[in-house]
């Protein structure tokens, strides 16, 4: 039975005390918050009257750090923003830097960045949907979703040497080219993943318990989604047909044939379905990119004095050695205009953008990160009002809030 919405009561602290309502603390250490989120819930029996998110437990000040690390060093910090899909953050960061500097990366680099960004989208959605299943009681499902993620980590390891904190991109290129082994691994994953998606869909899509717990829960209308700044799968599940890969094609997304997955219901189940559908579309993009992977360098040449030359060149040629020094020396470094730029990508969670202010030095004067989780978690009190306590975890899971990104 659909529950009547109780009118928003605003701030918990300012409300008049009502004897029969009680306050429950949820988190910051709770298995269903996945990381450190804290919610103060005001309950009428088991019904949530209001929720007050309290964030900041993982505040690491990464925007301050950006002002003290150069454009290449900072990529290590972007790994730690949305740590479920670090590659997507790397790509977003260096795309913004390159847009500020006016660098166009070579086609092979663009394709490889698309591949890693889409693989990390699959990895992110596997975790998110797996965790939604886990939180609503489908533990086996979680294992089915988590297992193929190991294969994706193997690919990342083959590409850049790190499984989790990848730091794969550099200004004007990548740390290294994809080896034939890595490409073979990607081809294998393209063959195997549809089986996983099929397993997941068969396990949960029509599972009565799961559908009952997610359908009609946490409904976000299209107008609210736009007004409240939702993006990515959360907005698309509410009928906002917006995908930056289509609407503002960056890298080489214009070359690929894929669909934008949308739903209109705007509830937790719709968000789940949109993520499931998006994984298949991402796999389509990866398959097209790997078949049409252009030959050529993965970084812009050393003449632009922006990308680090390959190590072999540094050790064997004078030009390579000089460029290496010039890029790394603090009084030389990159040529950056005294300008401001906003660059956005369609990260797995939504619009991940960077607002960069350059001041001519090789460090950003200001590097604002527009984190999708931050705006999505702000939706939470609105989505949960009137629902039951057990729906908190379903809504929280379907928003895919990553605390490291949320707490800045």
């Amino acid at each position, binding site marked *: 039975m659909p529950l009547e919405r109780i009118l928003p009561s*605003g*701030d918990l602290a300012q409300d008049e005390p009502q004897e029969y309502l009680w306050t429950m603390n949820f988190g910051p250490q709770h298995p269903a918050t996945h990381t450190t989120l804290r919610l103060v819930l005001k309950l009428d029996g088991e019904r949530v009257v209001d929720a007050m998110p309290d*964030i*900041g437990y993982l*505040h690491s*000040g990464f*925007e*301050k*750090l950006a*002002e*003290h690390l150069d454009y290449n060093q900072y990529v290590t910090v972007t790994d730690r923003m949305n740590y479920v899909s670090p590659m997507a953050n790397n790509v977003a960061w260096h795309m913004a830097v390159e*847009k500020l500097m*006016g660098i166009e990366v070579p086609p092979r680099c663009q394709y490889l960045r698309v591949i890693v960004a889409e693989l990390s989208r699959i990895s992110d959605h596997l975790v998110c949907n797996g965790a939604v299943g886990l939180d609503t009681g489908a533990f086996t499902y979680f294992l089915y979703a988590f297992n193929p993620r190991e294969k994706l980590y193997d690919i990342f390891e083959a590409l850049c040497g790190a499984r989790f904190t990848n730091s794969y991109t550099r200004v004007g290129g990548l740390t290294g080219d994809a080896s034939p082994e890595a490409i073979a691994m990607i081809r294998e994953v393209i063959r195997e993943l549809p089986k996983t998606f099929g397993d997941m869909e068969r396990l949960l899509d029509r599972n009565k318990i799961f559908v009952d717990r997610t359908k009609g829960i946490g409904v976000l209308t299209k107008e*609210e989604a*736009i*007004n*409240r*700044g939702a*993006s990515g799968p959360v907005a698309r599940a509410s009928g*906002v047909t*917006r995908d930056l890969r289509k*609407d*503002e094609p960056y890298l080489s997304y214009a070359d690929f044939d894929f669909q934008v997955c949308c739903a209109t219901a705007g509830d937790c189940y719709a968000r789940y379905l949109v993520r499931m559908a998006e994984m298949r579309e991402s796999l389509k993009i990866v398959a097209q990119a790997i078949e049409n992977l252009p030959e050529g360098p993965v970084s812009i040449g050393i003449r632009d004095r922006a990308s680090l030359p390959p190590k072999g060149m540094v050790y064997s040629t004078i030009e390579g050695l000089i460029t290496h020094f010039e890029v790394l020396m603090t009084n030389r470094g990159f040529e950056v205009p*005294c*300008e*401001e*730029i*906003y660059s*956005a990508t369609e990260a797995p969670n939504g*619009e991940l*953008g960077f*607002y960069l*202010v350059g*001041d*001519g030095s090789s460090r950003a*004067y*200001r590097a*604002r990160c*527009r984190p999708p989780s*931050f*705006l999505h*978690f*702000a939706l939470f009190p609105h989505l949960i009002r009137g629902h039951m306590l057990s729906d908190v975890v379903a809504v929280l899971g379907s928003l895919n809030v990553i605390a490291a990104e949320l*707490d*800045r």
Partner: protein
Amino acid sequence: MDAMPTRTTSELKRAFPTAEISEFRGQVRAAVPVSSIGDCLRFLKEQLGFDMLVDLTCVDYLAYRGATSRFGLVYLLLSVDRGERLVVRTFVDDPQPAVPSAVPLWQAADWLEREVWDLFGIRFEGHPDLRRIVLPEQFTAHPLRKDYPLQGRGERHNFPVITRAEG
């Protein structure tokens, strides 16, 4: 660089003659004096259809070459139907930097303004609940300001410690 006039920029210029339009790498930006920022945002939302506030942030221009004001506020607007973006900037100065809140226009501004208040100390007048958001309530500084050191001012060592017996 002067921007190519579009419908948005020409209408904005007609309604707000003091707005300065510029363009960089295809991105259109409008600088609006702080006295008219509230009206300007309302005009952009209600008349020109910028229905989404993508981001709201701040830049501290304390050490920036050629800057005339201390803080620059940046509103990133988007018209979802047209897919058009617009960057609106306004500048505020010490002491007591303040701008009108955008929460009545876009709910998204709620947490974004709280974050700017927390990290830069800019007041948003008319915000329903302007509290710190990522830092603890007892924190006194605004750490993303340029005069705040990277290592902090020792706040970390002075956090209240709750022992197991007290908690």
